[in-house]
C-alpha cells in the first residue's frame, strides 16, 4: 500500500492499527462507481477541499465502514472549518467516528436534500430546531430545579425566550407559544410582554408615548372584536349537538365506536346543507305559487311507506314543479309587461337545475377537502414498523372512564400484545408448503363464494324487478284498487333491503372461517365485499329505472315522479330494516346469549357494517335528490332517529369491540368510501340524467325540452340575444364547458401533478431511511468515543 502524499490533516502518519484491509486497487474499484457523483459534488466545492477529498479517498478506511463498503469520510473539511483549533489527533478520531464515515453518495444525498429544503422548512410554521433555544424544550419545566443557581439564570432564560419569540413572524410565534410546554400563566405573561414589545418596536424613538385617540379607538375596537369572536366560538362549541351523548359513548366504548357516531353527525351536516339550499331556492318558492292542478287523493297511512297516493302531487316530487317563470310580470297571453307592480320573476326550471348542480358541486368540494384533511392526519410516510411501540404508547384510550370498560380495555391490550408476540414468533417460523397450499385453497374458495353470492343477488334483483313490473302492469289492467297496486310497489325495496341485511352476516361468517393473517385485513376484506354488493345492486337499479322509464306511473306518464317515489320507498325501507337489524342483531342476540346460552359475553357493535349502511342510505339520498327535492329532509329525520335508537341499543345491549380498531385510519377509509363509490356514483347518475335523458312531456320543470341540460343552453342563448355585451360568457360556455379538449387538458394536468407528488413521496421515503441510518451511526459514535477515551486514558495494552 503506497504511502499518501502529505496533506492537510496529517492523518496517515500517526495511524498504526487501523490499516484498511482493502487493497488500493479494490478501493479505487469501489470508487469508480461513484465517479459521477464525486464529480457533481466536487463541482460545487472549492478546489482545495477537492484535493483533500481525493487524497483521502485513496487511503482512508475506517473499521466500521469496511463492512458497509464505504471507504472514506466526507465531512472532514467541515470539521476542520468548525474546529480549527483542534489537534490533528482529535481530528483523526473525529474522522474515524461511524457517523462521519458513511459513504459519499449517502452524504451527498443528505446534504443536497438539506440545502434544497432548508428554505421550505423555514417557511413552515414551526421554526427549525437549531434555532429554538434550549428553554423551549421539555427541560424548561425543570428549570425550577435549578433554583440554587439563582433567579438570575431564570431571568436570563426568560429574556432569551422572549427574544427568540420576537424574532419569529406572528403566525410562527403563536404556533410556538401554543406548542410550548409551559403553564398558561407563563404563556399569558409572555404574550403580554411580546405585545408590549411590539408596540415599542414600531415607534422606537417614542418609548412611552400614550397612544393617540385614533390608536386608542382602534385598540378598543380590536380588543372588543376579539372578545366577541372568542365568545362566538365558545358558543358555537357549546351548541354542538349531542355533546353529552358522545361523551357517554366514548366513556364507555372508546374512540372506535365513537367514530361511527361522528360519521353519522358528518352525514347529518351534509344533509342539512343540501336540504336548506333546496328549501330556500326550490321548495319554498314553488310553495308560494302552487300550480293549478289540485290534489285529488286523500291521505291514508300507506303514503308514509310508499310515497305514492296523496303524496304524488305535492312538493315532494319532481312532477309538481312548474316549467315556467313564476310571478312573471310579462304574461305570454297579453304580451304586455307591467313590471311596475313590484313583482320579481323567478325562473323555476333554471332554479331547479342550478340549485341541484351547485349544491352537488359544493358537497363535492367539502367531501374532497375533509377527505384530504383526514388522509393527511392519518397517513405517515414510512409508518409500517413499530407495532409494539405504538401499541404500548398509543393504544390506551384516555377517553374511557367507566370501570368495566377500563377493565375491558386492559384485557384487550393484553390480548393484542399476546397476539403480536405470537405473530412475531410464527413469522420466524415460515409456513410449510402444505399449509400454504391449504391457505390458498381456503382463500380462493371464500372469494369464489362471495363473488358467486354477488352475482346471484344481482341476477335475482334483476329478474325480480322485471317480474314486479309485469305484475304491476297486470294489476293495473285488472283495475284492482289503488292501495293494492301501491302496496305491491313495496315488494322490490323490501327484497333489496332484506338482502342488504342478510348478506353482511354471511360475509362475517365467511371471514371467520377464512381467518386472515391480520385483523385489519379482515376488516378491509369484509368492507370491500359488502361495498361491492351494495354498489352493484344500486347500479343495476339505476339502469333499470332509466331504461324502463318506470312504467309504474298511472298519472300523466311522469316517470321522474315514479323514480322519486321508488327512491323514497328505498330510503324508508332501509330505515325499517336497520331498526329490525338493531332489534334482532343486538337486543335479541343479547337475550339469547344471556338467557339460553348463559354466556356473559354481549354482542359487539359491528362498526364497519353499520357505517356501510349509513353510506348506502346517503347514496340513495343523493341519487334521489333530483327527483324528490324533499328527500334530504326524510334522510335528516332518519339520521336523527337512528342516532338515538343506536345509542340506546348500544348502551343496553353491546360491549366494546375486542378487535384492534385504528380509529383515525378507519375514519379516513370511511370518508373516502363516501366520496368515491357513493358520491361519485350519484354524481355520474345525475350528470347522465341531466345530459342525456329525455324528460317526460307531461310534468315537471323541463317538460318541453329534449334534455334537462338544454334549459341551461337555451338560457345562455337568450342571454346572448338580449344583451350582446356579454358574449364572453357564452364564449366560456361554448369553448370550455362544451368542448371536450379543455376537460382532457385539465385531466392531463391533474395526472401530472399526482405523478409528481408520488415521486416526491418516494424521495422522502428514501431520505427518511438515510437519516435513520445516520442517527444510528451517531449513536455508535458515543460508543466509539468512549472506547477511544478508555484507550488513551486507561491502562489497556491492546487497544484498537
Amino acid at each position, binding site marked *: 500500500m503506497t504511502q499518501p502524499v502529505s496533506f492537510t490533516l496529517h492523518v496517515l502518519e500517526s495511524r498504526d492499527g487501523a490499516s484498511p484491509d482493502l487493497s488500493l486497487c479494490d478501493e479505487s474499484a469501489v470508487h469508480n462507481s461513484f465517479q459521477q457523483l464525486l464529480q457533481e459534488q466536487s463541482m460545487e466545492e472549492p478546489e482545495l477541499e477537492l484535493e483533500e477529498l481525493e487524497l483521502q479517498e485513496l487511503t482512508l478506511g475506517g473499521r466500521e465502514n469496511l463492512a458497509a463498503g464505504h471507504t472514506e469520510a466526507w465531512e472532514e473539511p467541515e470539521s476542520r472549518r468548525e474546529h480549527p483549533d483542534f489537534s490533528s489527533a482529535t481530528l483523526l478520531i473525529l474522522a474515524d467516528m461511524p457517523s462521519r464515515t458513511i459513504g459519499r453518495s449517502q452524504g451527498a444525498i443528505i446534504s443536497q436534500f438539506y440545502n434544497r429544503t432548508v428554505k421550505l422548512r423555514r417557511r413552515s410554521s*414551526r421554526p427549525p430546531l437549531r434555532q429554538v433555544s434550549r428553554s423551549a*424544550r*421539555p*427541560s424548561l*419545566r425543570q428549570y*425550577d430545579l435549578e433554583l440554587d443557581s439563582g433567579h438570575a439564570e431564570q431571568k436570563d432564560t426568560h429574556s432569551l425566550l422572549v427574544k427568540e419569540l420576537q424574532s419569529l413572524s406572528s403566525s410562527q410565534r403563536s*404556533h410556538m407559544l*401554543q*406548542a*410550548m*410546554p409551559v*403553564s*398558561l*400563566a407563563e404563556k399569558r405573561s409572555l404574550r403580554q410582554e411580546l405585545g408590549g414589545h411590539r408596540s415599542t418596536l414600531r415607534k422606537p424613538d417614542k418609548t412611552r408615548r400614550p397612544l393617540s385617540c385614533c390608536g386608542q379607538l382602534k385598540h378598543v375596537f380590536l380588543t372588543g372584536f376579539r372578545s366577541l369572536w372568542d365568545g362566538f366560538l365558545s358558543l358555537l362549541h357549546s351548541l354542538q349537538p349531542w355533546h353529552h351523548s*358522545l361523551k357517554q359513548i*366514548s*366513556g364507555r366504548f372508546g*374512540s372506535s365506536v365513537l367514530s361511527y357516531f361522528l360519521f353519522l353527525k358528518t352525514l347529518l351536516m351534509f344533509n342539512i346543507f343540501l336540504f336548506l339550499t333546496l328549501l330556500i331556492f326550490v321548495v319554498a318558492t314553488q310553495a308560494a305559487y302552487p300550480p293549478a292542478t289540485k290534489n285529488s287523493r286523500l291521505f291514508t297511512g300507506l303514503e308514509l311507506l310508499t310515497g305514492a297516493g296523496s303524496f304524488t302531487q305535492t312538493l315532494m316530487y319532481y312532477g309538481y314543479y312548474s316549467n315556467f317563470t313564476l310571478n312573471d310580470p310579462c304574461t305570454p297571453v297579453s304580451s304586455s309587461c307591467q313590471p311596475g307592480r313590484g313583482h320579481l320573476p323567478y325562473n323555476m326550471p333554471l332554479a331547479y337545475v342550478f340549485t341541484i348542480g351547485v349544491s352537488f358541486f359544493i358537497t363535492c368540494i367539502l367531501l374532497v377537502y375533509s377527505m384530504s384533511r383526514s388522509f393527511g*392526519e*392519518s*397517513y*405517515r410516510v414510512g*409508518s409500517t*414498523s*413499530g*407495532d*409494539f*411501540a*405504538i401499541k*404500548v*404508547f*398509543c*393504544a*390506551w*384510550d*384516555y*377517553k374511557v*372512564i*367507566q*370501570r368495566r370498560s*377500563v377493565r375491558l380495555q*386492559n*384485557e384487550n*391490550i*393484553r390480548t393484542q*400484545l*399476546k397476539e403480536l*408476540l405470537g405473530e*412475531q414468533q410464527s413469522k420466524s417460523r415460515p409456513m410449510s408448503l402444505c399449509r400454504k397450499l391449504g391457505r390458498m385453497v381456503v382463500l380462493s374458495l371464500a372469494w369464489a363464494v362471495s363473488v358467486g353470492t354477488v352475482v346471484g343477488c344481482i341476477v335475482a334483483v334483476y329478474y325480480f324487478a322485471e317480474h314486479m313490473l309485469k305484475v304491476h302492469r297486470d294489476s293495473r289492467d285488472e283495475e284492482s284498487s289503488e292501495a293494492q297496486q301501491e302496496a305491491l310497489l313495496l315488494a322490490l325495496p323490501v327484497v333489496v333491503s332484506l338482502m342488504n341485511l342478510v348478506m353482511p352476516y354471511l360475509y362475517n361468517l365467511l371471514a371467520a372461517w377464512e381467518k386472515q393473517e391480520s385483523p385489519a385485513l379482515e376488516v378491509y376484506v369484509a368492507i370491500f365485499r359488502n361495498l361491492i354488493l351494495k354498489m352493484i345492486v344500486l347500479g343495476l337499479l339505476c339502469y333499470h329505472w332509466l331504461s324502463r322509464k318506470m312504467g309504474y306511473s298511472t298519472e300523466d306518464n311522469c316517470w321522474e315522479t315514479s323514480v322519486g317515489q321508488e327512491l323514497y320507498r328505498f330510503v324508508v325501507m332501509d330505515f325499517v330494516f336497520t331498526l329490525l337489524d338493531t332489534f334482532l342483531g343486538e337486543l335479541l342476540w343479547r337475550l339469547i346469549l344471556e338467557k339460553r346460552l348463559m354466556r356473559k359475553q354481549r354482542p359487539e357493535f359491528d362498526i364497519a357494517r353499520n357505517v356501510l349502511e349509513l353510506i348506502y342510505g346517503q347514496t340513495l339520498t343523493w341519487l334521489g335528490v333530483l327527483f324528490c327535492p324533499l328527500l334530504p329532509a326524510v334522510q335528516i329525520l332518519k339520521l336523527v332517529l337512528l342516532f338515538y335508537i343506536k345509542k340506546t341499543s348500544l348502551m343496553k345491549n353491546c360491549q366494546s369491540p375486542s378487535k384492534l380498531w*385504528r*380509529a*383515525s*385510519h378507519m375514519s379516513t377509509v370511511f370518508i373516502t368510501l363516501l366520496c368515491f363509490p357513493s358520491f361519485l356514483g350519484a354524481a355520474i347518475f345525475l350528470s347522465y340524467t341531466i345530459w342525456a335523458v329525455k324528460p317526460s312531456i307531461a310534468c315537471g320543470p323541463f317538460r318541453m325540452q329534449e334534455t334537462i341540460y338544454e334549459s341551461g343552453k337555451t338560457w345562455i342563448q337568450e342571454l346572448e340575444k338580449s344583451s350582446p355585451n356579454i358574449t364572453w360568457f357564452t364564449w366560456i360556455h361554448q369553448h370550455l364547458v362544451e368542448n371536450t379538449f379543455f376537460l382532457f387538458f385539465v385531466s392531463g394536468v391533474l395526472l401530472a401533478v399526482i405523478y409528481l407528488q408520488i415521486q416526491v413521496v418516494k424521495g422522502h421515503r428514501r431520505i427518511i431511511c438515510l437519516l*435513520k441510518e445516520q*442517527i*444510528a451511526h*451517531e*449513536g*455508535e459514535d*458515543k460508543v466509539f468515543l468512549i472506547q477511544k477515551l478508555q484507550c488513551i486514558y486507561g491502562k489497556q495494552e491492546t487497544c484498537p
Partner: protein
Amino acid sequence: MAPNIVPMDYTKDPDVKLPIQLIINMPELKENPFKERIVEAFSEDGDGNLSFNDFVDMFSVLSEMAPRELKAIYAFKIYDFNTDNFICKSDLEKTLNKLTREELTAEEITLVCEKVIEEADMDGDGKLAFADFENMISKAPDFLSTFHIRI
C-alpha cells in the same frame, strides 16, 4: 370539587393548590391507570398538587385542540416514571403493568420491552429519549384521538 378550599373569586390570584387525592377522584380520571402520573406531570412541584392554572393546563393539553407536539411532550413526561428524561426499561415495565393490570407474565413483559426499545430507539443507547418518542408518536395517527379526555 372542593368548594371549601377553592374560593369563587380568582381576581386576586390566590395561591390555592388542590391535593392530588381530590383530583384523581374526578370521574374523568378515576379509572385511568395513569392518573397519578398525569397529575404529577402537570404540577409545579412534581408532587401532584395542582393550582387552578395547572388544572386548566392539564385539561387544555388533553383536549382536542392541543397541537401534537405539546401532547407528545406531556405524554413523554407521563410515561417517564423516574423523571430522568428518558424512558428506560423499568419505565416501560411499569407502563406495561399499568396497561395490562399485571396480567402478563414476566417473560412476556421482557420480550415486549425489548421489542419496544428495538423499534423506537434510534441512537442505540437502550432507552428512549424524547426525540425517539416523538418520532414514534408521529408515526401513530391515532395518538391525537386516544390522548384526549373529554370534559
